[in-house]
């Protein structure tokens, strides 16, 4: 699966698309950044509602390629600016974390 599939396959809104051909190998669903730091794998998509720039700092540290913000949460400008600096994609969806996890699980493991 590649980054651009997040909008092409699932229709997530591309808030900041980054490099579309980057390979995605895994996903992690969490709203506690300390948990993401401890457990998420490099090359993952992070599925979360934590829409703030600290999420980008953690994603950058771990090697997370994209963040899917669920439940239609607003993405603040400083988060987008940080994402641009780190070349991490941000997608946004009205779907819940359960639904997004299901979709990505099917695609990555199914």
């Amino acid at each position, binding site marked *: 699966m590649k980054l651009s599939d997040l909008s092409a396959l699932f229709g997530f809104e591309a808030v900041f698309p980054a490099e579309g051909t980057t390979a995605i190998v895994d996903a992690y669903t969490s709203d506690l950044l300390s948990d993401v*730091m401890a457990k998420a794998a490099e090359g993952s998509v992070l599925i979360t509602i934590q829409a703030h720039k600290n999420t980008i700092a953690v994603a*950058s540290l771990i090697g997370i390629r994209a963040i899917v913000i669920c439940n239609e949460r607003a993405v603040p400008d400083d988060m987008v600016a940080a994402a641009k600096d780190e070349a991490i994609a941000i997608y946004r969806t009205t779907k819940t974390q359960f639904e997004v996890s299901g979709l990505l699980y099917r695609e990555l493991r199914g």
Partner: protein
Amino acid sequence: MLVACDFHNHSCLSPCGSLEQSPAVLARLARERGLELVALTDHNSALNAPAFAECARGEGIQALFGMEATSAEEVHVLCLFSELRAALDFSEFIAGHLPRLPYDPARLGDQVVVDAQENVLDLPDTYLCAALDLGFDRLCEAAAVRGALVIPAHIDRPMFGAISQLGFLPDGPFSAVEAVRPLSASAARGFTVITGSDAHYPEHIARRPFGLELPEGWNSGIHVDLEIIRQALQAGRVRLPFGS
């Protein structure tokens, strides 16, 4: 007498804190901007408290020492002591509950322990903003049993506050709760509301102080009498820069 207080300030030890904000700079700017009782509350550590104690004495301001601890649920809690030794003992206890997470100073910020003259003493390589392996209730209890003022930080912020992380403010051994905007009495659940600068950069220092009504002689001892502070907070003898 109304005393100008600010119980929420970081130094260069906090990774999100400016490298320019040494304890010396914090003490000096606090004094210049009219603060009288100032706490140093770095993330999960009081290692810069000795330097802050010396600098505060030099500047003629009163100090509290402690930290902004992060519970397992990522709720931030201010834990304040008036005696340096108590703060350092608590800091050592907390260090035992801090997970060793990957820490890249280039990405997450520098963490610098300094002395009063800004000489570098240590560069901790455990990420200080990590969540402790202590849940909120256990963290607050551990601080309270050691005599700290326990003050949930910025409970009204969209992240790292009790309400954002837990959905509500639980009951607890709190002397007060900290908010950054006017907060309803129901959200504060009857606890006294204070505010704080959460100063990470020199320009933040004294941006959001509060007034605490204290008896004459509150600052005449070798160190501040924490019980006098605790009583004034719990009795609600507080004046906020914004309305309630």
